[in-house]
């Protein structure tokens, strides 16, 4: 009930995407006495899960095994994944995708009525379930619509969480592995809109400006007409992105108004297959680059796609902060290590969303109720902080300027290839941008639907995240997975088979290390 002490619930889920909704449902099923709130800064069906396309991996067929899925994932992570977590992940994945099927998710089907699985990058066996090429959309809508069944889940749509109010003392939150930013090799130039890996899973080819399937020059060959697991276009994303950059350095990419690109050729797949399994790809290419993939190759280039890093959690989703759990892309458990295999993250939402939801529900049941008075005081302090920082009259910096300079600094220092000098430059730029941000000026001072204020709050968070990425990257003196340094080109297990943990300090992030958990797969050379 709303009152002076705010709204009261036993459990609050921040974020109404795939992981958040799955957690809320898991909590509702764990206990029928808990009052659960889902807070989402957009209406849940707008969450970014909706734009995922390719698929959701799980062991479904007799020719597959949990160990194979685990090995593929660990190999793909360049051995930085926590292997005990990966073992739990692959074990719970099949149950989760079936549960989602029971909840109405329209998985594509084989003629006998079983859910279909397709090949995907870095996977040894076909194990990626899919709903045409709008898997994230269908999963999100299935989860959201199912969540409407539960009366004990109350939603707060278009609510933005500004701070966590803590009853005793301050905390510096911990994020892990922030330096690992995944570039997806096939995005459209200009807009950066994603062309799903499934296009390559179905047999698409990547060609340079000479029409040559260049991936064979980088140890991913030999080229075959139909896709072979883990070879050529089904290699892992970090390697494919690096190949693109190297082709560009050799002068073999196309040049366009939005930068260099190569061709993703789907013509040989035929109109019938494209319309059945890749209809969204066709629609996106036509709308945004005016190309019909049935007749012409699509221009593509690597685009920033995913953060392997996130809020550090244990195997149940618990963070270092009592009562706080995290799951999904926002968390780092870690199953993805230094590089994520495509179609593992949608599964991650389900498996760890459920685990974190259940763990949080159990915690809420055992916990005594909080005293509301301190919360009221903390809440009004927060309101005053926001008023003073953002709604002041004497600001002089524009949000868009700071945002664009941050993007430029990150693209230059934390891109696909990195080196010390550029990274240090980026760190310095980010520090300066933080200082400038203190003088941000907002034109919009209204209280109702002030999207400029939200943009400022998000920019503040993004600057924090950018700093942890840059500092962690600078500190990691090796190349592993998606973190590639020209000054340290080799992987260094002796020093760096560890997670980078970033702690907040007034002078910027402090980096510490935590060894990765190795169970049954000792690190080996990562060759495809």
């Amino acid at each position, binding site marked *: 009930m709303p009152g002076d002490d705010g709204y009261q619930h036993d459990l609050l889920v921040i974020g109404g995407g795939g992981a958040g909704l799955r957690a809320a449902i898991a909590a509702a099923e764990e206990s029928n006495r808990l009052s659960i709130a889902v807070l989402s800064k*957009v209406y849940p069906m707008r969450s970014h899960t909706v734009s995922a396309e390719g698929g959701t991996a799980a062991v479904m067929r007799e020719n597959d095994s949990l160990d194979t899925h685990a090995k593929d994932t660990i190999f793909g992570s360049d051995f930085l994944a926590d292997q005990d977590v990966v073992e739990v992940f692959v074990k719970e994945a099949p*149950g989760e995708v079936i549960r989602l099927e029971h909840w109405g998710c329209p998985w594509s089907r084989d*003629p006998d*009525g*079983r859910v279909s699985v397709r090949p995907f990058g870095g996977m040894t066996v076909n194990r990626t379930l899919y709903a045409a090429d709008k898997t994230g959309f269908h999963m999100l809508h299935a989860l959201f619509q*199912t969540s409407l069944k539960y009366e004990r889940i109350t939603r707060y*749509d278009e609510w933005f969480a500004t701070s966590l109010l803590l009853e005793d003392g301050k905390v510096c939150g911990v994020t892990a592995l922030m330096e690992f930013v995944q570039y997806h090799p096939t995005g459209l130039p200009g807009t950066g809109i994603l062309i799903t890996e499934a296009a390559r899973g179905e047999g698409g080819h990547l060609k340079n400006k000479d029409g040559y399937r260049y991936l064979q020059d980088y140890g991913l060959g030999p080229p075959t007409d139909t896709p072979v697991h883990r070879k050529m276009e089904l290699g892992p994303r970090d390697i494919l992105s690096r190949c693109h950059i190297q082709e560009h350095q050799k002068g073999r990419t196309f040049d366009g108004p939005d930068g260099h690109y190569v061709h993703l050729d789907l013509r040989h797949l035929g109109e019938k297959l494209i319309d059945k399994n890749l209809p969204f790809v066709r629609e996106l290419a036509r709308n945004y680059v005016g190309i019909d993939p049935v007749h012409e190759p699509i221009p593509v280039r690597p685009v920033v796609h995913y953060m392997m890093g996130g809020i550090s959690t244990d195997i149940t989703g618990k963070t270092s902060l009592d009562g706080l759990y995290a799951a999904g892309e926002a968390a780092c458990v870690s199953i993805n290590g230094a590089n994520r295999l495509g179609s593992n993250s949608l599964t991650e939402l389900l498996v760890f969303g459920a685990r974190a939801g259940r763990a949080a529900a159990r915690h809420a049941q055992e916990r005594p109720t909080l005293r509301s008075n301190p919360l009221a005081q903390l809440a009004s302090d927060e309101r005053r902080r926001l008023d003073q920082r953002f709604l002041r009259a004497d600001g002089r910096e*524009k949000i868009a300027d700071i945002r664009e300079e941050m993007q430029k600094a990150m693209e230059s220092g934390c891109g696909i290839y990195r080196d010390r000098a550029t990274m240090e430059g980026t760190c310095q730029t980010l520090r300066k941008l933080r200082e400038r941000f203190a003088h941000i000026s907002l034109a919009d001072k209204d209280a*109702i*639907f002030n999207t400029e204020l939200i943009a400022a709050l998000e920019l503040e968070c993004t600057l924090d995240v950018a700093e942890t990425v840059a500092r962690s990257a600078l500190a990691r003196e090796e190349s592993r997975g998606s973190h590639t340094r020209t000054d340290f080109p080799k992987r260094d297990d002796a020093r760096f088979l560890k997670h980078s943990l970033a702690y907040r300090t007034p002078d910027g992030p402090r980096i510490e290390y935590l060894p990765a958990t190795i169970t049954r797969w000792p690190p080996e050379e990562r060759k495809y």
Partner: protein
Amino acid sequence: MTEETMTLEVTRYRPGHDREPRTESFTVPYRKDWVVLDALNHIKDRIDGTLSYRWSCRMGVCGSCGMMVNGVPKLTCAAFLRDYRPGPIRVGPLANFPVIRDLVIALDDFMEKLRRVKPWIIRAVEKPVADGEYLQTPAQLDAYKQFSMCINCMLCYAACPVYGLEPAFVGPAAIALAYRYNLDSRDEGYRLREPVLAIALAYRYNLDSRDEGYRLREPVLSEAVGVWECTFVGECSVVCPKGVDPAAAIQRSKLAGATDWLLSMIMPWGGRR
């Protein structure tokens, strides 16, 4: 060399200050690959930070950015400036909805209707997860697939004059979603969705001399303005950016409802599905 520009005439409405919406003109650079959303973002970043509007994925799958562009409901992330040259382009909030501010409308009514049509799988007995998936052939999937493509952008509500005249109308997207579940071979919830969709079953019980539930159903009947309100204008399907064809879903629901009602009159002992 002067850069080519375009003018956008944007609806503004400031709650508490304006009694009615007004129009403001902005000049933006013309880029041939820009969409109206890019132009709005440029206005917000560089000209007037107070302009409020919704957007998210900018690739036509999240449904956030629906607005009226030259009087037609469109996703502004898919409305290319080049198709409106030389302009000016009128941009307004989605029609038939209450306006919160500028280009932002209130969706509460739609969200409530979404919930009321029970858009989830309803079964008498659930299959244990350990027993695997419900088998569903590609043909069974095709039966409802088209109606599962709705991104909840509500352009169809903006196009529907019935919704404009009668806000209690359940509306195209909600009906299409209910129909999607009714057609899903795994679902058994047709009866439970009927009162909201077609009220035929509710009437049937009201007329039954043994029944005494009239008072309980009265609120549903007067509120649940279901499929029979539709006069098949068909504009919903014209503006739908995802080819869902809600008009077809509604007409087919009418047919299904009428057939079911007739059969229940002729054969009251028989159970449908």
